[in-house]
């Protein structure tokens, strides 16, 4: 039935689509149908930021974004579905989750419901909920995110005890029509999916969402979706819709308004965009193209480069491996490593692409003190950020990089760090490694200061 409907829509003129989409925006509850034929299948995966032309047939990208209030669809999504996507974007904006959060939310909703607000015939009360846009049946799942009353997604009831089967779950849901209606409210469904910032005084139903998933910003969107939804990884197909989600977010992010949370949250607000808690982390699933949460593109790229080097390093040792950082020199290479990382981020610490390598901790600090490409901040009175270079020890014996900060705990990655067979002093640099570890409190860890790109 849906395919016939979509085929019919393909014959509606483009100008009419504008009109209908505008009506849809003004009267969100009205039944109006339109369809955009814009096809963005060639847009690469690794970009976060896409803008498209409504009804365009040739060049697929512009820099202007969509007209304010006019949602932009992509092939196979109805205006109602795109309107639901805008709701997800609006909640993501309110919760300060950035485009990555919206992409994960929309990816999930596409897989779960094709972005339709589904009632469940096995939960009869759901069929009476105004605004239902279709039906689907799986346990007691309802709504765009296919959330379940029985498993505790509603703030109005606690969920069915134990681990009930389909019949028990459906019976439980049917006994709680208000909870069913809540899960079929698109804005609430999005809010529940996104969860709440750690530390906020949120009800249980809002404390198991994306924001409560440690490290979600760095996860593949499909993996994050699997985790939040508690889906079986062997059958979940969230990965099939990530591109669609990126396209929808890219084309509608600028124009979609933030939407107030149906269930207001209390507690600390997020301090950095895209992080959802007091942490500062970097999402490395795509190349950074814009400042996120106060972290410049340079910082984001540097952190991601360091992370990739750590992932690829394993247990390797020797100049054959660290030589790419030291330009072939068999030397102590901690400063070489961070110099190379910043070169890959297109921001040589020296300000000079040809002479990019600093092999000395002391010189790195003095570079910061010169206030040119890099800048010096003593630990006292400074709150580090991802991308900062850490001058370790009162004798400046080592340098590595902050890649994450949560409260006063920092995560660092560095080169020429102790490996399993590294003993002082004779095993440096030949048995040292690239490694990453956390420091419980940067203020009391013999850190003299930070050399930063801004």
């Amino acid at each position, binding site marked *: 039935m849906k395919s016939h409907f979509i085929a019919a829509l393909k014959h509606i003129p483009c100008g009419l689509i504008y009109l209908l989409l505008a009506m849809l925006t003004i009267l969100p509850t009205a039944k109006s149908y339109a369809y955009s034929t814009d096809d963005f299948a060639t847009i690469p995966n690794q970009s976060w930021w896409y803008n498209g032309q409504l009804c365009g047939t040739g060049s697929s990208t512009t820099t202007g974004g969509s007209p304010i209030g006019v949602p932009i669809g992509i092939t196979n999504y109805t205006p109602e579905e795109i309107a639901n996507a805008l709701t997800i974007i609006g909640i993501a904006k309110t919760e300060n989750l950035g485009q990555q959060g919206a992409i994960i939310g929309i990816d999930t909703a596409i897989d779960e419901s094709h972005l339709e607000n589904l009632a469940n015939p096995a939960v009869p009360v759901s069929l009476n909920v105004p605004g239902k846009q279709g039906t689907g049946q799986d346990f007691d799942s309802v709504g765009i995110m296919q959330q379940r009353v029985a498993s505790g997604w509603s703030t109005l009831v606690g969920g069915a005890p*134990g681990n009930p089967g389909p019949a028990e779950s459906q019976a439980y849901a049917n006994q709680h029509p208000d909870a069913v209606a809540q899960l079929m409210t698109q804005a609430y469904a999005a809010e529940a999916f996104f969860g709440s910032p750690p530390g906020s005084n949120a009800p249980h139903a809002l404390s198991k969402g994306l924001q409560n998933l440690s490290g979600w910003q760095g996860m593949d969107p499909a993996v994050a979706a699997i985790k939040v939804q508690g889906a079986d990884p062997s059958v979940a197909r969230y990965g099939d819709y990530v591109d669609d989600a990126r396209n929808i977010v890219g084309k509608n992010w600028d124009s979609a308004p933030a939407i107030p949370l149906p269930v207001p949250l209390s507690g600390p607000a997020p301090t950095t965009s895209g992080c959802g808690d007091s942490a500062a982390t970097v999402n490395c699933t795509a190349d950074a193209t814009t400042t996120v949460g106060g972290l410049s593109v340079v910082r984001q790229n540097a952190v991601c480069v360091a992370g990739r080097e750590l992932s690829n390093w394993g247990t390797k040792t020797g100049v054959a491996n660290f030589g790419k950082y030291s330009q072939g020199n068999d030397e102590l*290479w901690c400063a070489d490593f961070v110099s190379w990382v910043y070169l890959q981020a297109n921001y040589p610490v020296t300000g000079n692409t040809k002479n990019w390598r600093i092999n000395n901790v002391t*010189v790195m600090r003095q570079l910061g003190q010169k206030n040119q490409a890099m800048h010096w901040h003593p630990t006292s009175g400074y709150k580090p950020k991802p991308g900062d270079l850490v001058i370790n020890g009162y004798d400046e014996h080592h340098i590595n990089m902050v890649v994450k900060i949560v409260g006063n*705990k920092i995560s660092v990655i560095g080169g020429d760090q*102790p490996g399993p067979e590294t003993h002082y002093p004779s095993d440096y640099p030949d048995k040292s490694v690239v490694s990453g570890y*956390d420091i419980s409190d940067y203020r009391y860890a013999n850190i003299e200061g930070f050399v930063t790109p801004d």
Partner: protein
Amino acid sequence: MKSKVRLLAVLGVIMVGGLSILSTIRSARFHVAGFDPSLKTVATFTPSLTVHFSKPLTKNGLEIAMSPNAIKSYDISGKDLVVKLTYPMQAKTKYRFTIKSVAAESGATIKNYTASFTPKDMPYESLPAGQQKELFNNQDKDQPAALSDPIITHLPYHTLGFTLSALLSGQGANQKLTLDAEITLSHAEMSDEANAVAQYKQQITDYISSFGLDPSKYTINYTVQ
């Protein structure tokens, strides 16, 4: 005329002899022979200061001090006292270095010898080659021993259900490595939370064991979200 020449010659002989005697007396006396670098050229990043003495030293009774304190460690080598400095020192600040007591192998001693220096703010490139080399060779090697644990190259480790990472806490010799395990339960797992947590804990210990390491030797701090 001849008498004047003779007089001058005698005076010359007396002077040379006197100087020679003084020199002999001085060399026989246990004394500070000099500093390297000279106290006038100490920089904020000077990594060590060597005090040359006139006689081989013994560690017995050796006691030194500096105000403000910039002494990291010290040792003797033949006639030299090598003081490793905590750098960078403060520029334009007068450091007062006191040898409270030092003894030569011969038994001679020096008490309460004092010297001062004011570090200069110099770029690395302007330091003597020896100091540059010493600064470079000092880096990296003084990292916490706790980071040499074999688990370090296998962390951080992420799965859908948990993140396992190495956590360094404490200061100086008290720095220790513990493991942080953050378990994140999904809605579906909340219905049987205890069982889900137990399964993730087992996965974590299995991961550590997979490298031939004994999980019981690690302090693992679990948090469940």
